[in-house]
């Protein structure tokens, strides 16, 4: 890397117009992330036409700003109203919402903003210095490796929720079943679609998540108020404390690494990285039993991971022209629209675009920190609004958001249906997070399994003969066995003690 390249980048990123559009991007991104029902990929898609007529580099700066800005904003609804704005924020709801119930919403939001800033900035450094070799690493991940990664993801499901493990696994199975709906990718046969064209692509994550979390939570609150009284804490007392920072910094570091490396794998992305980051923290923690009750590491780790992942996804896009996520696929389309051929030559043929974008991401992350840190208490003070006023507004925004993604009323129906299911689940103590995560992971797992077996003509050997896949699978096995062994040990120790 030539330092002149970065200077060129900053000279572009700091031009007044680009600065302005970077700000628009991160600001709109924050709002899009905060609105339940609209994720970053829909946000980028909806705002894509706005960028027509802009110079390509300005447009890319704005679109990328929306993308990583949405990762900051996604925290807000997860923490405040237990509603993930996109699949990568599901993990944040587990501890974030509990923190909000304890009146620590501001701390959660503040720490998420700091974690996102650190993760965002560090991963831009990685993108800048090592994009081409990292992209080669990413594409060397074939279907068997993806399969192993998904298995690892699923084995951590049980550990994700506090409360009954059986109930958690049960809803995860329901999520896996829901994930089988739609056209069978390998054979083209429709499964459980009941001749309805809207089900051909399967059940989308977003309406299910908004239904289960937002609507379900709100209905439950009407039935049995958890938080009848609006929060009355002082604004100034809502920022993270020194203790919070001491608890979180290592989690932020690990979340960044997990997020970046998983995020750059095409198709795996932010969701599974936030998931693995949370599970890692819980496993490494001295007090794993407190996860799910509102610990700050449970917010810091997944929030750092999903932010790092959004930058990681730019690695294969910029270095090879291969989109790593739904959002980067839209950005790829955008590049083509501006008359550029995305691919390995982009960095050399359009250095202004690549370096301008990289530099703007440093600037954008600073903007987001400045924007989000002081705003954390302001957002948190939304909880001062009485629930009877807040609920109808949130339901309205959520349903509008779900409709706008595909301009399809069917998804609104799905949202309402899952709202009712979410209410019942809440009533009987079934956690919603494993369901939506299994719904996201299931189809990816199935795809990778069947692709691998198609490659090996049916022999499962392929999973153990490829070193990376064998390594990840062994790790997953350990993840399952370890708690069992320690449980047996504890029981034996208890018996000997009793005897």
């Amino acid at each position, binding site marked *: 890397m030539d330092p002149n390249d970065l200077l060129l980048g900053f000279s572009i990123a700091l031009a007044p117009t680009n600065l302005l559009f970077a700000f628009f991007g991160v600001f709109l991104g924050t709002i899009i992330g905060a609105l339940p029902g609209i994720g970053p990929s829909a946000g980028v898609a909806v705002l894509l036409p706005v960028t027509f007529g802009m110079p390509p580099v300005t447009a890319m700066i704005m679109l990328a700003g929306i993308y990583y800005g949405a990762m900051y904003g996604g925290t807000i609804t997860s923490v405040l109203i237990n509603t993930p704005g996109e699949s990568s924020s599901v993990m944040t709801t587990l501890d974030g919402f509990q923190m909000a119930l304890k009146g620590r919403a501001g701390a959660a939001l503040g720490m998420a903003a700091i974690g996102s800033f650190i993760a965002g900035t560090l991963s831009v450094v990685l993108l800048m210095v090592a994009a081409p070799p990292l992209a080669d690493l990413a594409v*060397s991940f074939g279907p068997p490796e993806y399969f192993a990664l998904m298995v690892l993801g699923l084995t951590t499901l049980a550990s994700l929720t506090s409360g009954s493990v059986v109930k958690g696994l049960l809803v995860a199975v329901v999520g896996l079943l829901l994930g089988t709906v739609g056209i069978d990718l390998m054979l083209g046969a429709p499964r459980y679609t009941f001749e309805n064209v809207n089900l051909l692509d399967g059940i989308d994550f977003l309406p299910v998540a908004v239904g289960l979390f937002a609507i379900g939570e709100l209905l439950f609150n009407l039935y049995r108020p958890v938080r009848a009284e609006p929060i009355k804490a002082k604004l100034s007392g809502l920022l993270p404390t020194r203790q919070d920072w001491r608890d979180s910094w290592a989690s932020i570091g690990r979340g960044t690494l997990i997020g970046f490396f998983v995020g750059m794998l095409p198709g795996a992305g932010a969701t599974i990285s936030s998931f693995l980051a949370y599970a890692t923290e819980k496993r490494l923690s001295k007090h794993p039993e407190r996860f799910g009750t509102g610990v700050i590491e449970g917010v810091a780790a997944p929030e750092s991971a999903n932010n790092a992942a959004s930058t990681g996804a730019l690695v294969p896009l910029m270095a*090879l022209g291969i989109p790593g996520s739904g959002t980067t696929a839209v950005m790829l389309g955008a590049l083509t629209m501006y008359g550029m051929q995305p691919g390995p030559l982009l960095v050399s043929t359009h250095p202004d675009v690549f370096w301008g974008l990289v530099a703007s991401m440093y600037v954008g992350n600073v903007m987001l920190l400045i924007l989000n840190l002081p705003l954390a208490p302001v957002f948190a003070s939304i909880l001062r609004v009485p629930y009877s006023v807040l609920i109808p507004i949130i339901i309205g925004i959520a349903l509008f958001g779900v409709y706008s993604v595909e301009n399809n009323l069917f998804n609104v129906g799905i949202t309402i249906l899952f709202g009712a299911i979410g209410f019942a689940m809440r009533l009987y103590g079934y956690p919603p997070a494993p369901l939506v995560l299994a719904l996201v992971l299931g189809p990816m797992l199935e795809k990778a399994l069947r692709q691998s077996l198609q490659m090996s003509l049916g022999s499962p050997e392929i999973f153990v003969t490829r070193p990376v896949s064998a390594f990840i699978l062994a790790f997953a096995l350990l993840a399952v066995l370890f708690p069992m062994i320690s449980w047996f040990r504890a029981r034996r120790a208890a018996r000997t003690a009793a005897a």
Partner: protein
Amino acid sequence: MRRSAFVSACVAAAFMASSFTTAHAQTDASIPKLPASSWKPDRPVEFVVQAGAGGGSDLFARTMAQILTKEKIVTVPVNVVNKPGGSGAVAYAYVNGKKGDPHVIATATSSYLTTPIQGHSPVNYQNFANVAILCAEDYVGVVRTESPYKSLKDLIAAAKAKPNGVRIGGSSVGSSDNIIAMMLNKAAGVKLNFIVFQSGGEANAALLGGSIDLAGPNPSEAAQLITAGRLRPIAMFSPERLPKWKDVPTAREQGFDVTFEQHRGLILPAGLTKEQQLFWQNAIVKMFQTADFKKYMDDNGLRPLLKVGDDAEKYIAERNKFYVEVMTELGLAKKR
């Protein structure tokens, strides 16, 4: 073994002769002369795209919408509306519900024909006015640079030696890659191992990573990876060599009669008057001739293929016949 290979080669030859030679080569588009229309739209036009924002069809629609407005060919606002889902089934069900409404127009590519053939859509091409075909996409067979295969012949020889040993990847069953794989199997009497990915991007990643041996993207999709020395083109699946890719031989030249193109066109709801249809035909022909549209086709490696009105209807009916045969061969056509 030898006998069966011989028999299947004969069957393949007969099959090719009967159906797979319907590729339409048209290098300089002949511009049809049309009478003027007395009708014009009086409220905003809804331009429906059967895919999400940012993809090829979306770019196609947004480019056209922009030109139609900019050149004042259409004087009312033209709003692009994405209706993704069900490989086009959702969008076309929606357009079908707009019977008799001349303020709706929609993009249509191969999924417009293949989705109904697979029985996934309640409506098919006969439920719409197939107003125009604008261009066609070609396909190129690529291997990664580290691959031992220098030509399609090498690859086919390896596939002959080891049935299912050579892997070809593509997006979804019934996609262009799947059809090309099947046609190669037929033409060369081999069995390639087809592996489905979720998108062309994922297939390209798998190709670069060595999980698959061959992929069949559009030349423009693969252009940079080829120039950067990451991918090697081994065959063009067009009837003739492409002007921009003169040194890439066609599959036909290498002894495998496999040609495939995918069209891009526009459809209108059924039940429009003659004048309303004529307005759109005129508008499309005018739009097609603009420098902006030529640049769009050039940038995206699209071959001009202009057909309007009855010609477009005829082309679509022919393509449908082709796809019915192909999809039946792939075991994907819904049995009636």
